[in-house]
């Protein structure tokens, strides 16, 4: 057999055509695949080339970074007035919390960050314990610490709280209070007992049907009339009650979604094993349901976190409220003050919400992967 006409060595593969590889190929595939696409891409590129330098110019190049008063920002052609944010930074974070006691707030912030950090690590083993700690011990410890009046810490009344502190207090109280309430309401809505079911449905639909702002108005104006004569409730606490009730209705719907996703067989199997109702729920169903709805819970929390800004309308000084009330400080009046303040607040909220939404997406991916 003469195999001489067969090639004995393998030829190296040809490189892919230039039009589909490398930078040029990528551009052609993704930006200029057709005439229409090319036109759109060109227009958008022009827009970006126009926009981005202006933004950079305003936020960095021409920005005023420090100064004693608004005078530094009143010069012609000045960009963002970061000096305003710089000078008022403490107020934006702590409100009028006494300066000597700031360390208490810092400890709480650190505890919070320390508690949330491990949750982002997929390999961390004691997540359940950390979550339990954050949902039970931490909120009470935080309130005791922030309010003071015990353990040798002077009392700091809630009307001195403000800024990011109030934003976080409202948001975290909302989530911590709404989880157990939401679980109970969701169970109530799926209960066999008609009275429980009707009350749960009424409660959930009522709170979901009205805007948060009317809830806050109710808490601030109407709640005092609901209480017996002489009993008064702190202004912050009133807003917290309103936010907790409101968010528990949304949480209930999220958790109900999780309960519905648990297969009926799980209930039947638990019943067959002789477990009682509560055992079935808390040892079999709830762990599965909650794991499914973690992304939903995080999304509810993002919504709640953004909605905390509404408390400024009823006169509490959350982050947005504090920043806005400082716009009227005559010392810092300048054309760029308001814009810089808004951008600062937007940035803080964005960082919190964006990282949470990324976390929720990653959990979602993991959960759906595990289910396959």
């Amino acid at each position: 057999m003469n195999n001489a006409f067969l090639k004995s060595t393998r030829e190296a593969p040809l490189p892919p055509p230039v039009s589909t590889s490398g930078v040029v190929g990528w551009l052609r595939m993704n930006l200029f695949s057709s005439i229409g696409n090319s036109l759109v891409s060109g227009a958008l590129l022009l827009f970006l080339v126009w926009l981005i330098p202006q933004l950079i110019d305003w936020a960095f190049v021409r920005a005023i970074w420090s100064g004693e008063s608004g005078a530094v920002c009143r010069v012609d052609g000045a960009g963002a007035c970061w000096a305003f944010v710089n000078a008022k930074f403490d107020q934006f974070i702590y409100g009028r919390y006494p300066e000597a006691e700031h360390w208490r707030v810092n400890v709480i912030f650190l505890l919070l960050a320390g508690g949330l950090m491990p949750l982002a690590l997929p390999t961390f083993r004691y997540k359940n314990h950390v979550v339990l700690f954050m949902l039970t011990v931490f909120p009470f410890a935080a309130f005791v610490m922030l309010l003071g009046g015990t353990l040798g810490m002077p009392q700091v009344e809630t009307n001195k709280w403000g800024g990011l502190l109030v934003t976080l207090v409202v948001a975290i109280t909302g989530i911590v209070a709404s989880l157990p309430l939401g679980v109970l309401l969701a169970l109530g809505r799926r209960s066999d007992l008609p009275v429980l079911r009707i009350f749960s449905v009424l409660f959930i639909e009522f709170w979901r049907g009205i805007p948060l702002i009317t809830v806050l108005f109710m808490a601030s104006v109407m709640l005092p009339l609901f209480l017996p004569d002489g009993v008064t409730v702190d202004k912050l606490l009133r807003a917290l009650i309103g936010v907790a009730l409101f968010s528990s209705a949304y949480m209930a719907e999220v958790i109900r979604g999780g309960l519905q996703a648990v297969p009926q067989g799980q209930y039947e199997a638990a019943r067959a094993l002789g477990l009682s109702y509560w055992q079935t729920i808390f040892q079999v169903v709830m762990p599965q349901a909650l794991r499914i709805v973690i992304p939903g819970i995080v999304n509810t929390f993002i919504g709640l976190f953004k909605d905390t800004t509404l408390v400024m309308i009823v006169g509490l000084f959350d982050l947005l409220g504090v920043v806005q009330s400082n716009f009227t400080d005559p010392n810092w009046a300048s054309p760029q003050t308001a814009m810089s303040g808004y951008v600062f607040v937007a940035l803080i909220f964005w960082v919190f919400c964006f990282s949470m939404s990324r976390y929720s997406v990653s959990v979602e991916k993991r959960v759906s992967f595990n289910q396959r």
Partner: protein
Amino acid sequence: MPSFIQNLLSNRTARGYLTQLIVLLGVAWLGWMMFDNVATNLRQQNIASGLSFLEEEAGFGISQTLVEYSEQSSYGQALWVGLLNTLLCALLGIFFASILGFSIGVARLSPNWLVAKLAATYVDLLRNVPLLLQIFFWYFAVLRSLPGPEASFELADSFFMNTRGIFVPSLVMEGYGGLVAGCMVLGAVFGWLVAHALEKRHAVRPIWLGKTMLAPGVGLVFGLFATLIFVGVPAVDYPHLDGFNFVGGLGIIPEFTALTLALSLYTAAFIAEIVRAGIQSVDRGQVEASQALGLSSRQELKLVVIPQALRVIIPPLTSQYLNLTKNSSLAVAIGYPDLVSVFSGTVLNQTGQAVEVIAITMAVYLILSLSTSFLMNIYNARMQLVTR
């Protein structure tokens, strides 16, 4: 005795009744406590109660009124004005948010990398910043960058834009405005019915015979004829500067513009995500099958992808529409006279009857929400039926 109780407790049915009884008593007790406290507090402090205040003269002005309203009107009419302002803002907001949201949702799936990335950036940026902040931003940023009335931006001497709002020419309807509007609605319904009938007979029709074109088209034609019959050729009222501000024409106050803009942009980000998820939920095989059947890309989208995507899209879309309506209550922060701002704001302050005013406001929102979700549930059920 204890064994009797033990028996009772171990009986499932009995336990169920017992639980319900306890809950019922608890709720009743709570309700009675609250009612009793309110009643006692009001009586003790001589605070007026009841709904008779709705008949009293309001005595304050409102910056945007869709119906006849003056300072002599009653608090009840102020409530009506506020409600209409809320509805106007919500409906326009829903309209713009839907258009923008659908476009951005589709853009996120665009093969053009730049378009997809920009759409994603838009969604990530707008969704993660509080709405209230965005409303403030649009209101004050826009307001500060506009000129005063004397130096308005103008177009063809008839369109003006300044710190007091946007002013456009309007048609003088000589009191027949309501009639003409009625005819337009009638025409739109008629057009929709015709398009619906055509749809049943012919699966593929020229684009102008679809519901989206025929309903508004016939409505406009009806309106035009009604105007010609009742008013003749209507005079045009051009806005012009008189004293400090523009008079004549149609004025759109900046509070309304800012609120609608902020609501539309914010909600559009959420709608975009819903639309993207909806389109992605359509099985790839469906698209391939329709291509194999030789459908054009328009037919493929219209007959295969969109109907299936809509089924996933509509339930969350409904809740976004409801959210937008409820979020329009943030108007109170920038002084747009919506329901909350006029009624729970001004009227509450003037009358001091907090319980009644807040209860009415909540009831109105509840009715709005529940009726919308009721209608959407019917629509949804019909969409779902198609699959079977």
